[in-house]
């Protein structure tokens, strides 16, 4: 169903910092949460990822099951949204989309489905054909304002050695820079000593 995603999670750290520090206003209606992983000690069922969050006038809880799905494995997202002031559940439609979790390149956004409330919960199933990093977006509109909730989802095992290459590039760059500076320093010392010798001989 989806294209294989190039795993470039190394930029997540930077994007995370940007999200935390530079999205104060956007936080009101747009949430990028990294759900907490918890084990269920009462059963052998796979654990889920769950996050509770406040956006705008709503208190939203979303749950991804299983926490770490594999390609070809059936999973689902449950979203609960209730008003902060009176606790009333949101009753309109909720849209679920998915896109590749990439900083650059093709996001390949696709609609997963549109869901109506069912027993106070919005349920959206999914099956990923290929491993990779995705972002599932749940969105709805209330009081004329859009509400968007993003949550990243890793499907399958990691597959990128890119951070190692970046680290090596840093190290090589540092060593080359140091070598260049050292050569310059040596050259300066050589020139200085030659000049000193010349001035002494004069």
């Amino acid at each position, binding site marked *: 169903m989806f294209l294989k995603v190039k795993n470039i999670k190394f930029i997540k750290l930077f994007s995370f910092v940007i999200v935390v520090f530079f999205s104060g206003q956007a936080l009101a209606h747009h949430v990028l949460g990294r759900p*907490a992983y918890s*084990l269920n*000690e009462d059963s052998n069922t796979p654990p889920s990822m769950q996050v509770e969050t406040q956006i705008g006038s709503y208190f939203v809880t979303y749950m991804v099951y299983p926490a*770490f799905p594999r390609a070809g494995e059936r999973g689902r997202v449950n979203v609960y949204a209730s008003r902060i002031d009176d606790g009333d559940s949101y009753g309109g439609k909720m849209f679920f989309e998915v896109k590749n979790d990439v900083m650059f390149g093709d996001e390949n956004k696709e609609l997963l489905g549109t869901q109506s409330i069912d027993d106070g919960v919005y349920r959206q199933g999914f099956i990923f054909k290929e491993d990779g990093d995705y972002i599932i977006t749940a969105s709805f509109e209330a009081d004329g304002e859009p509400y968007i909730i993003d949550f990243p989802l890793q499907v399958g095992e*990691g597959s990128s050695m890119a951070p190692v290459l970046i680290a090596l590039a*840093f190290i090589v760059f540092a060593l080359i820079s140091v070598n260049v500076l050292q050569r310059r320093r040596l050259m300066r010392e050589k020139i200085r000593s030659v000049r000193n010798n010349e001035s002494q001989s004069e």
Partner: protein
Amino acid sequence: MTHPGLPEYWAFVVWGFMVLLSIGLLLKINFSRFSFLNKKTISLYQIKFVSPVIVFLTQSRWLILVLKLVVVALFLLVIYAGLMGTPVPERNIATVLTWNIWWAGLIISIFFLGSAWCAVCPWDTLASWHVKPRFWLKKYSLKINNSLEMTPPKWMRSVWPALIMFVGLTWLELGYGITTSPYMTAILSLVMVVLAVISLAMFKNKAFCHYICPVGRTIGFYSQLAPVELRPVDNDICTDCKTMECFTGTELVDACPTQLVMGRLTQNTYCTSCGNCTQSCPDKNVAWRIRPQSQEAIESAKPHWDEAWFMLILLTLTSFHGITMMEFWEDNLRKFAQIIGDSGQLLVSFSVGLVLSVLIPVGIYALAIEITRRWSSSSSGKDLGFKKIFTSLVFVTLPLAFSYHLAHNLNHMIRESVGAGQLFLNPLGSNVSYSGVADQLLIKNSMLLSENNIFILQSVLMMFGFWIAIKVLQRRTEDLNIKSSLHLLPMLIFIVAINSFHIWMLMQPMTMRVGALCVVPASL
């Protein structure tokens, strides 16, 4: 999943012990008389059968090289598994080896071996291999130096950078949740290596180990409580020494990475146990020796302002580690997040919790110091000064932090390392399932120590921490010429309060760091 807490009866045993010692302190009983070795140190070179082994261990550069190779191999495995393996933390060797075994075991190793870890640290080893590789051929060596050898700027020559790094690491570990992410664990490992390389490429000696590394400084301060030290065999030889190879190095052996002069060495704080001094000394005058546990913190370590803050914040962050693994933490964090309108990963709420957890004990300590200062100055007529008392008495925090750290880590080590060996067969955790009830049963039945033994050890450790803290208080106040028992009361209350809080935390069910390790078939 959670671990069961310390039973009440064990907690009461520790509290009873604390009450007795507190009364003893106020009655001016001299606790230094009850020391195991009573100020005696034993040079391992002077023990007949141990001596040849110690000589081999300290003089052989091959042994340490082999150990470094093993540790580097494991470190590279962590990075590979973190990047390429399963995201399920308890099934990936990256998270298990880093957080359950290394991070928990490291603190336990200090109790016996001091700063031995620093000698084989993969961050520094990889940095040295990149920047200052050295090749030996019998008695010759070729050293390549790719460092600018700059002197670190003045602001950097303290433990403040390491302290900032330590707070940052705690935030990443507990706030961002690196411990439950194999991928981020691998990224952190890479970042530390890059930092070590850049530091070594820019500055002379090992500025990273000396000033920046949060792990190295934590080990250094805790090593004041260790029963081992590298010291001169004969002080007179050091006094007469004109060449100081331990400080300058030789053709074959590097200089001391943290610029210590063996003849003047009185504390372990900056010793990385690298063994350069034992190899470079032409008189073979440097040796490992055994000393009374914690002797350094009790009497010989010198107080410094930046180091005092490191020790104090080390205590607060150690307690904070425990707090975040309590069940009440999550509930209260959510409630607080609702009040301030925090959302997503609740990082703002977490950061506020972190700051409060640091500020509250620091405030209580500062208050205890200020009361001590006022009382002592009003009775003696001489004001010792806040800073002097603050830096002198801060050593009480070391045993309190260390004992709780050990007791807390015992849970992680003993309970969560069950089945760790199997992870080496499948380090990437491919095709294994999550942990569940089956794992919990396996953990309970195959722990290295029985649950009751863990509780006994935890109780003993908490008593040990309190005992050492009281001895530190007694000795350091003597040095400050604070004689009245009443004047010890504020600090005694501080020690009792912190240790009691730690015991209370040990009594609570504790959340696992990365979950159970037992590898169960996917069908389960």
